């Protein structure tokens, strides 16, 4: 990352945009909100925040962001999705609403609200050795889980019972929980590292 820090976009159609910005501020990483195609073109990597996946999906279509997002993802732009963000970058949903679409990118099947209603929402700690030597604090809020992964997908973290809650495929990272709510920096630091690596050849 010597010299130039990558610019991270946070998709700001709906959800906990501010919490992601706070984590990026703490890491000292430049960031900008993304609501339009023009804004999308300026960023080196994109965070899709927590929120309501059905709403984020609709807004990407209403405001003609769906195709530009899919295009950048297919060209290898690094993407990090938390909770609703994970849902948005999954190829398949096992319980989509009747007209729900995703952007895709991760060869996984995801179940929404996999733990039940809000009274089942919980906090815990996770091991994610590739991401951090320390335990990661994780808040699961009406969270999804990854039910099935394709051959090119790496599992980064699971719950005690083996259920998959963090995955990576190439430059795309998706997690069920909210480190931005816990204020845990590990996953964001890891993602910013991925973005910096994709820029490295250009600066070599």
């Amino acid at each position, binding site marked *: 990352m010597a010299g130039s820090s990558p610019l991270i976009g946070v998709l700001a159609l709906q*959800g906990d945009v501010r919490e992601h910005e706070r984590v990026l501020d703490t890491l000292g990483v430049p960031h900008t909100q993304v609501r339009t195609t023009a804004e999308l073109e300026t960023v080196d990597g994109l965070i899709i925040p927590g*929120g309501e996946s059905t709403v984020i999906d609709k807004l990407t279509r209403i405001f003609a962001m769906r195709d530009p997002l899919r295009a950048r993802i297919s060209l290898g732009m690094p993407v990090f999705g938390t909770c609703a963000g994970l849902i948005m970058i999954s190829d398949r949903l096992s319980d989509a*609403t009747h007209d729900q679409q995703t952007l895709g990118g991760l060869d996984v099947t995801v179940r929404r609200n996999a733990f039940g*209603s809000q009274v089942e929402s919980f906090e*815990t700690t996770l091991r994610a050795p590739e991401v951090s030597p320390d335990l990661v604090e994780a808040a699961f*809020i009406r969270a999804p889980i990854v039910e099935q992964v394709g051959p090119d997908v790496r599992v980064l973290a699971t719950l005690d019972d083996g259920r998959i809650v963090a995955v990576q495929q190439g430059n795309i990272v998706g997690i069920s929980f909210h480190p931005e709510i816990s204020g845990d920096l590990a996953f964001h630091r890891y993602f910013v590292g991925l973005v910096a690596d994709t820029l490295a050849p250009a600066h070599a």
Partner: protein
Amino acid sequence: MKNMAKSNPEIGTDRVKRGLAEMLKGGVIMDVVTAEQAKIAEDAGAVAVMALERVPADIRAQGGVARMSDPDLIQGIIDTVSIPVMAKARIGHFVEAQILETLKVDYIDESEVLSPADYVNHIDKWKFTVPFVCGATNLGEALRRINEGAAMIRSKGEAGTGDVSEATKHIRKIKGEIRALSSMSEDELYVAAKELQAPFALVQEVARTGALPVVLFTAGGVATPADAAMMMQLGADGVFVGSGIFKSGNPAERAAAIVKATTFFNDANAVADASRGLGEAMVGINVSDLPAPHRLSERGW
């Protein structure tokens, strides 16, 4: 403890209660009275629905005591949509809240729209796993509710009127009082806490951070895309729309239009586009024509 990975997942923590409200930011929460309406709201892009028996405009028109809705109605709505479902309990009615928790609603609104059950005490919201949203007309009231365990605040406005003026007044008041605290010196905060009738620790936190410690939505009288965009420009994190949608001529289109205007609240072209061809807005009542005893925003203490 550092080595005890993944043990003892904890439910009902502050973080997960307040966190769900964070996920709703930038969104519109819509009042619905049937499963069909809930589906229309979800399809239009509502971020959550408020399940109730009568919208505030009808509560106002019909009078009588307004209570928690029938559990069957709430259950029917929970079974129909995948977005979060909220439901209202009367102010101070902790047993209605217990019932709503067993129904597994995602948020309880301890609401002045229903008839109060206790004219002295609000519900002790710390005792619940389910999070609460409460109304407030000023910063002191908001901080008293947070002190009782509220995980989300909505400015009250005047529900069931379609008149946005009270919503404007309350969000301006809360944001203005926050700005005033931010500019005070540390030794002025003691008297500020006394005047706000709010706990000193919370007053100190607001002065330091320049924001409430929980998400702040606005409510009460929002009826058009322009109303919603104005609330967002005044600093709300999101919008509740009660009677404004299903008391209008074309609920599905109006609901979608208010969602668009809430997302692109700073873009007048987008709000203008969202405002086109929506048909009749709810007829509404001017708040200034309401005699004081019929003003719901004065309930809560």
